[in-house]
């Protein structure tokens, strides 16, 4: 009996912890997915969501239409990849409902310099922690 109570308590605590960190962030809506080709005009690092590291945001200009977008890439990617102003990129992502005149795209895929970076899966779940983030800085502690 004690054993069951302990298990239930642990599960309840873990469930509370998992819910506690959630924020009311813009949702990745697969029905609003777009694909654009653009040129990077500016790279900024700014807080986007409560309780997360600052996000790398690209201010881009769509090829052809010259329409401006803010493209939300990932938290902390700033140190792992060097994106430059003037670079051509292809972006697959979801148009997010955010305040402001410039529309925001939550990026799922970023194609840059012939390389494709998968930032989220097809359902919008983040995958940067297992991907580009590991290039963020030297993490092989203890190595020469």
């Amino acid at each position, binding site marked *: 009996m004690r054993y069951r109570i302990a298990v239930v308590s*642990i*599960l309840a605590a*873990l*469930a509370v*912890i*998992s819910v506690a960190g*959630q*924020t009311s*962030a*813009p*949702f*990745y809506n697969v029905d609003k997915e777009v694909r654009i080709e653009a040129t990077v*005009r*500016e*790279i*900024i*690092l*700014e807080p986007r*969501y409560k*309780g*997360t*590291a*600052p996000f790398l945001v690209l201010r881009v200009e769509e090829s052809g239409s010259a329409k401006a977008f803010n493209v*939300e890439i990932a*938290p*902390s990617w*700033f*140190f792992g990849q060097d994106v*430059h*102003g*003037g*670079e*051509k990129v*292809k972006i697959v992502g979801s148009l997010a409902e955010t305040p402001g005149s410039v529309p925001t795209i*939550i990026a799922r895929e970023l*194609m840059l*310099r*012939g*390389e*494709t970076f*998968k930032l989220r*899966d*097809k359902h*919008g*779940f*983040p*995958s940067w*922690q*297992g991907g580009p*983030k*590991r290039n*963020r*800085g*030297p*993490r*092989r*502690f*203890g*190595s*020469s």
Partner: protein
Amino acid sequence: MIMKNMRRLVSILMMAVLPAWGGTVNFLFNQHATQNLFQTKDAVADQISIFSLTLDHDFSALSFLAKAEYSAFNQTSGMSFFTADLGFDYLVTAGPKSAFYFAAGGAGEFYRQTYDAFSSLGANLLGAFKTYLVPSSILKLQWQGQYAVYKDSLFDFLSQTAALSIDKYFPTRTTLKADAEYGYKYFLHPYMPEPAEPILATILMSAGGPGGQGLSGTGNGESGGGWGGRQYQGGYGFIPRYSSEGGGAGIGHVSASLLAAQGIGDVIGLSASAVRQWIVSGENPFLSIEEFYFVQNPSSDSFSWDGYQLNGRITLNLPWDVALKTGYTYSDKTYPGVESMGLDGVPLGVVRNDLRHLLDARLQKDFRRFSVFLAYSYVDNTSTDPLFTWKSNYIMGGIEWNLPTGRKGGV
């Protein structure tokens, strides 16, 4: 019954913990095959299986990393080893175009008895700054300090590197990058106490001729098991210097590198780079050094050499999430303080110099949750020390499985 309940409990806890973790769980399995494990003229083939588990989690701008890895050697099982890493890093913005990055961590490497002298505990600190001078140009500064203690205290060291880089992207899709680095490694007590008999006689007695067994592993009284590959065919084994004065020894370098990268369409990426490194103070404190495939050798690393390295690389981004990367590297490295020796163990009076050709290729296919890769390398190394003139093929294959446990929203 108890076992059945325990299995059920573990499964339930895993399912509960992963969402609660809110980070990433990464499993990795790699299989390596080499024709020359010890990278000497006396090739010893082996196969290595690597199992790795990494946990990664962000707490706002603070990240936590924990990693455990086991490398199992099929033929020379005495070299199998386990490593564990724990670390935190922290990102601080300094305006919209700049950020500081700090990391701290500790690591342990634990070898089985044959290589126990290389078992170590270490700590690492890192500070970095990155800023956009203009949108097309990035400036980076980085400092890294490291301390490690080994089972055989001859290898204990403190080191630091400071680096600066600047790059520029041009509308022709060309990137130019320049790096400069200063590094200094200080071995705290790398010398053996002066023996009663002459050093040369000791080396001759213990080298044991071609493919010899290296210096008799009296060690410094702490290791008991000797060093490196001396117990295997194919190596002198590590050879220390003797000194009646004892004390530490440092070796410092500066390096400069240039890189040019060019994108061609969406598919092809080309790059070429050159590195020149100069030893500006001290020399290697050991008489003979070795490097091994896949085993971190504390007597031979990025601080050890003076010389240059050239690299060319092609990246092909193919359909169906397949990427092919292939490259060629040529290096000319001299190891100040390290003597070339004949196969009979007699010093040749020449500082060791190695010329190396390296060809490598890697094919990777990404799936939704995991990646698989196949890689091949070929090395042709010519050295003024005939033991280290060797060639080898390497084949690697592996699977990496990422299990992100974040939420679907903005984060």
